[in-house]
């Protein structure tokens, strides 16, 4: 028996048990091997269920666990850091035929994957919103440094509203499922928060994160979405405590 054979048998439920196993009493080693097979798959499914609770609620526990099993066996974790496991689940869901009836499932999973990544991301001291209170109109020339524990995403579905409804904030029945939404996931201190961004907000934050000045980032966002309103996006990001440093422009 090699560990390659043992590992392959663990990940392919229909294959026979590996060679070279024995039992003290002559009982069937394959039946005992199934304890390992079960331990592995249950641990991986449980890890995904913990990371994707709203995704699970949307498709039902039985459906989620079947889908998670298929994903886990096809793409087992690449490291013992189970907290990272599942970053590829949204893409798997997007290509999963059986998940089609819930078209927004993959996008909600993207939001939950971002939430998990932000939970473990690096620490930094977020600027308090009143840091910006006395800031003059030339904020447009400034470059703002973003907190490392953040993510933004744009979805063709109202993923923030769906996520919020599953966390007791609003009713799922009141949501127009055809509206796109953009999300900011941010952990200014220890708790992760999810904010609904105004249209174009995700592109704006990405551009600021790439080092553009606030004014240039606003132009970038506006080019992608004429409905973009810079003041709304900037004030939300300030209230969400997305920024950790202000580098004033050199124009004056």
């Amino acid at each position, binding site marked *: 028996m090699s560990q390659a054979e043992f590992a392959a048998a663990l990940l392919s439920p229909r294959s026979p048990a590996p060679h070279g196993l*024995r039992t003290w*009493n002559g009982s*069937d080693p394959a039946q005992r091997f199934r*304890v390992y097979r079960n331990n*592995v798959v249950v641990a991986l499914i449980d890890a995904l269920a913990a990371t994707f609770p709203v995704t699970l609620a949307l498709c039902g526990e039985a459906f989620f666990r079947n889908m998670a099993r298929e994903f886990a066996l096809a793409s087992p974790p690449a490291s013992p850091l189970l907290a990272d496991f599942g970053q590829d689940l949204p893409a798997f869901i997007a290509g999963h035929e059986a998940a089609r009836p819930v078209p927004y499932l993959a996008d909600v999973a993207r939001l939950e994957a971002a939430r998990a990544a932000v939970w473990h991301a690096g*620490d930094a001291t977020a600027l308090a919103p009143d840091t910006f209170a006395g800031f003059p109109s030339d904020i447009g020339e400034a470059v703002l440094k973003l907190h490392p524990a953040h993510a933004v995403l744009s979805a063709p579905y109202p993923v923030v509203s769906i996520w919020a409804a599953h966390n007791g904030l609003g009713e799922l029945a009141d949501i127009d499922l055809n509206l796109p939404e953009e999300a900011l996931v941010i952990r200014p201190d220890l708790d992760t928060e999810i904010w609904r961004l105004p249209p174009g907000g995700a592109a704006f934050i990405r551009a600021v994160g790439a080092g553009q000045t606030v004014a240039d980032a606003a132009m970038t966002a506006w080019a992608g979405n004429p409905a973009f309103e810079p003041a709304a996006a900037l004030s939300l990001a300030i209230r969400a405590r997305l920024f950790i440093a202000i580098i004033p422009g050199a124009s004056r």
Partner: protein
Amino acid sequence: MPRAAGTAQTARLASAPAAPLPSPAGLPARAGIGFKSEHAEELKKGPASIGFLEVHAENYMGAGGRPHADLTALRALYPLSVHGVGLSIGGERPLDRAHLDRLRRVLERYQPESFSEHLAWSTHDGHYLADLLPVAYTGATLTRVVDHIDQVQASLGRRMLLENPSTYVAFTASDWDEVDFITEVQRRSGCGLLLDVNNVAVTCANHGRDPIAYLDAFPVAAVGEIHLAGYAEDHDSLGARLLIDAHGSPVATDVWPLYAHALSRTGPVATLIEWDNDVPALDRLIAEATMAEGYLSAASARREHAA
């Protein structure tokens, strides 16, 4: 890091008993519990009547956030044991250097009184299999495990404890008895041992062995910690008991006498209540730890009486 390099020299002395590695003060000979995040706020109120906390190393390998904030606060209040589950010391492939580096950073940051890992493998060809898988007890495995422990101890600059496994199958290739194998690994590597008494109960039930004989043969002088946990019960294809190391229930009634027997050989030693699934309220965990403290006190009294 000069100290680690020096240790590497010492630890690689072929098959002779290794020279002692820098060893932290060690855990107190008291009962501890596994730290679960839902108990963080209660535990931060001040030292509960527990001797130490144990955490899984892999939960503290992220960059930041609440896990580190909690552990930093708790580490100031309690002695700490860091227990790894992902190093794959029994693996056929070389150790994952990136994982070993992550582990070293956790230990440097929290300076735990103890670090332990398993006689098992969990990673193969870049896939983490999320379970502690069994090794065949052969001469080749022995050499490999000792090499891996040498590498771990040299890299971490400290002595580690190696835990005896729970297993459900045995291998036709095994030509070493489990306790003899562990004894020889310990002798060659100079590592310490973590005696998991629940694993002794599970493994002995699953392979038709006498747990008392197992404990009597165990090289107790190297034991730096004991684990206790609950098992789940199943049956094999012939209807014989098949115990599963489940960590989701109280310590089983037949494990407590084995614990008492183990203590009669080891003397009082740090003892962890492991309860990782269906985690109960903190009070319930502390009640289990208090049971263990009772056995520890009795072991201390016996020791003083004998002295």
